[in-house]
């Protein structure tokens, strides 16, 4: 057993932090795409669009039912063998794609539950003044469902940030990949992984604060 090498750890911080933007970018891109896809899936599930509903069910079942790591390997190593035009897919794109599909399946179910939870009489009120179903969704239901679903969606976002670390298995040098390389060079595995753990931790804590602030803001309209 050796004493912790603090100088090494301090020196490592700026190096690793330079990879943080890539981690956050992948998570942000994944989250943005996943939100759009999840909303689509949720609306399909709620309105039971024939045909599409069955597809949505299958999609959600598959992406919830298999590990993210397996999905990433499938997209990055597997699919290009079958669909040759995908040979050019890089690790970052494959990660964003994997995160999008995987998390959209979970998020779709949260959004669906939030939509179903909106008081039905508001739907009738919107229809009674002549709104179309699309207008009703966009202007009345989705804004309220967003508020209900936000805490859960933020949790998924936090989970997604941590899941970007799997990108290193696709050869992407992001936060985790960089740590791995540094540790392999110095043999100070404990120090290196401790530093990266703390970095992830601080990022997630910061997000939790934003989450609280966001929830407060969204709830403003509903306070007596």
């Amino acid at each position: 057993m050796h004493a912790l090498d603090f100088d090494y750890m301090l020196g490592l911080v700026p190096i690793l932090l330079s990879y943080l933007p890539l981690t956050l970018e992948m998570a942000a891109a994944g989250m943005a795409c996943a939100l759009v896809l999840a909303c689509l899936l949720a609306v399909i599930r709620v309105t039971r669009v024939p045909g599409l509903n069955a597809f949505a069910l299958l999609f959600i079942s598959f992406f919830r039912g298999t590990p993210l790591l397996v999905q990433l390997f499938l997209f990055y190593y597997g699919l290009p063998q079958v669909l040759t035009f995908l040979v050019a897919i890089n690790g970052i794109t494959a990660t964003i794609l994997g995160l999008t599909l995987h998390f959209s399946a979970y998020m779709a179910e949260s959004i669906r539950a939030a939509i179903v939870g909106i008081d039905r009489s508001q739907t009738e009120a919107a229809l009674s003044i002549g709104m179309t179903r699309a207008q009703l969704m966009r202007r009345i239901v989705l804004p309220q469902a967003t508020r209900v679903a936000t805490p859960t969606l933020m949790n998924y976002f936090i989970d997604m940030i941590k899941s970007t670390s799997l990108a290193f298995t696709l050869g992407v040098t992001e936060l985790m990949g960089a740590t791995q390389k540094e540790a392999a060079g110095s043999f100070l595995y404990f120090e290196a992984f401790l530093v990266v753990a703390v970095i992830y931790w601080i990022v997630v804590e910061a997000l939790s604060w934003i989450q609280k602030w966001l929830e407060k803001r969204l709830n403003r309209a509903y306070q007596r």
Partner: protein
Amino acid sequence: MIELKGIRKQFGDHVVFDEIDLSLDRGEIIVIVGPSGTGKSTLLRCINFLETPDAGHLTVGDLSFDTTRATQDQILALRRRTAFVFQNYALFANKTALQNVAEGMIVVDRVPKAKAYARAREILERIGLADKADAYPASLSGGQQQRVGIGRAMAANADVILFDEPTSSLDPQWVEEVLGLMKQLAAEHQTMIVVTHEMQFAREVADRVVFMDQGRIIEQAPPAELFSQPKDERTQQFLRKILAANVG
């Protein structure tokens, strides 16, 4: 101006009503009364296509169609010509009082925003809630919420406003302010059909009272006539019961 002909509605095997005929002129105020569960609300909802009638013909202004063959365009056109006031207010929880009133004008009638909000402010002024323009429904009393609900219906500039038991969910102290607003509308000759148990309101405001029982229109007459000399046995029974309850 508004005509229902042979309207039928059934839920599964249960026929709520059949062969309902009802017509009213511009500016006329009809109050529908009757025991609970006789299809009064369902009839009202059919006029707005919140329920799809299973048979019959519907005419509102220059719009006239067979309800079993209604196209999406006809339904939207019908809803633009009819406005609905709900028992539980049904305000949009994510919108302020002002936005609730303006929403239909902006989204459905495509009125420019500035103009829609100006008109919504006028309406809030008329319903006595100008100071609550930026309040969300959750912070309003039941009476205030229902007045916004009526304001939203007024903003639709509809040929007829349909009121579905507008005071039934209210705490007693808010009933008068809502009925007062409805009387104000009546004085301005707003065409309306009101389902309610407020007999005093019917007596004062209605041009015609329609008595419904078990899915049928039993009789209809001006309130003075219907309340003092009801012809049908069922009407007499109903009035005796409800008037006794109101006194007690």
